[in-house]
């Protein structure tokens, strides 16, 4: 692989990681892990294929691994399952950015898809390829993520994606 090829993608990887995990240090750690894993699997990359999608896919898988490794057993609750308490929003205006905090309130799977489409300008097929999910799933996550973000930004406070400790 051309040694500059990955470097070219680095700014985008960082931007995506920061939008995805928000915390600056954690985001750069995620990028670092992505680069390390990419080099360790560079033989699996088919020359001529989409390097960016490959790298984002690696980052996605690492992130999934991270999220599967919480200290407690958790079960995601779907919006429709329960009327969950609405989080306090009094301090929200103190947030550095309303957009970032709104984004952080999306379920990670919706946030990831939304960012790949809206920020990274990937086609739906590219997103499906990078994340290893069907295009139909990309579309439903995108639609739900956008609608939820709209409601949050409009202050309608849709129910929050809480997790129940088993």
């Amino acid at each position, binding site marked *: 692989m051309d040694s500059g090829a990955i470097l070219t993608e680095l700014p985008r990887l960082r931007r995506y990681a*920061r939008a995805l995990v928000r915390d600056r240090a954690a985001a750069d750690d995620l990028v670092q892990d992505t680069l*390390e894993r990419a080099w360790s699997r560079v033989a699996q990359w088919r020359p001529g294929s989409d390097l960016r999608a490959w790298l984002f896919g690696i980052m996605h898988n690492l992130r999934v691994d991270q999220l599967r490794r919480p200290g407690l057993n958790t079960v995601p609750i779907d919006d429709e399952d329960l009327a969950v308490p609405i989080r306090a929003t009094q301090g929200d205006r103190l947030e550095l950015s309303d957009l970032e905090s709104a984004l952080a309130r999306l379920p990670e799977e919706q946030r990831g898809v939304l960012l790949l489409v*809206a920020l990274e300008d990937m086609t739906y097929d590219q997103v499906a390829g990078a994340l290893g999910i069907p295009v139909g799933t990309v579309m439903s996550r995108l639609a739900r993520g956008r609608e939820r973000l709209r409601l949050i930004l*409009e202050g309608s406070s849709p129910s929050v994606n809480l997790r129940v400790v088993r």
Partner: protein
Amino acid sequence: MTKLPLSEADLQAWVDGQLPESRRAEVDAYLAARPGEAERLSAYRAQRDALRQHFDPLLDETLPARLRQLAEKPPIAVDPQKRPLLERWSLQRIAAGLLIALLGGAAGWLGHGQYQGDERVAQMTPLPRQAAIAHVVYSPDVRRPVEVTADQEDQLVKWLSKRLGTPVSPPKLGALGYELIGGRLLPGNTGPVAQFMYHDGSGQRLTLYVSTEDTVSRDTGFRFAKEGPVNVFYWVDGKFGYALSAGIDKGELARVATAVYDQLEHK
């Protein structure tokens, strides 16, 4: 030509400009008749713009050097300059782990022997051993060896003195080439004890363990104990027990211990 009904996926594709041109007009017509839907989709487009406006500046940020290097070339498995240091660190850690296990075992065994006699004594770990364990636990820590660093020495002294219930302060060992890193509060046998950490120019670390628990012992002269790779000089002075620990040779440690003793004596 029959027109397929518009789906939500089509509307999303319209937002992203990924809809085939042939269908774009259909969506435009659909939206023209439905102001609510038009508003919703325009909010989605606004999200796109807002996200880019917010996160695009990150693209122009200076890349951290570690990431740039890692992006340019694979991490080198064997770095001839770094490898020995890493190995040394890992060896030290293994040694520290072994020592803790050994000391723990020894303390357990001693406790077992004394348990028949006096339960209170059985729970007491001797001063040099406590100090050696504290030394091997904290001194290899690269990032957080101390709780309060030397640049807040005033607060460190105030805090530890308050917690130990008597004034304590770290001796100055600059003349011997050892500079204070900072200190921490630790649990001793029955209550709080203090640890001060120093290092020299080569990174060699040395800890001074200060305990006020040993009220029964009378003053002692210097005593020397060797706990695995750690040499410990310790002595009891009034209500204080002191133990100076380091992985340096006995002669050098004695020299530092003497200086510490002199300073504490004449303060």
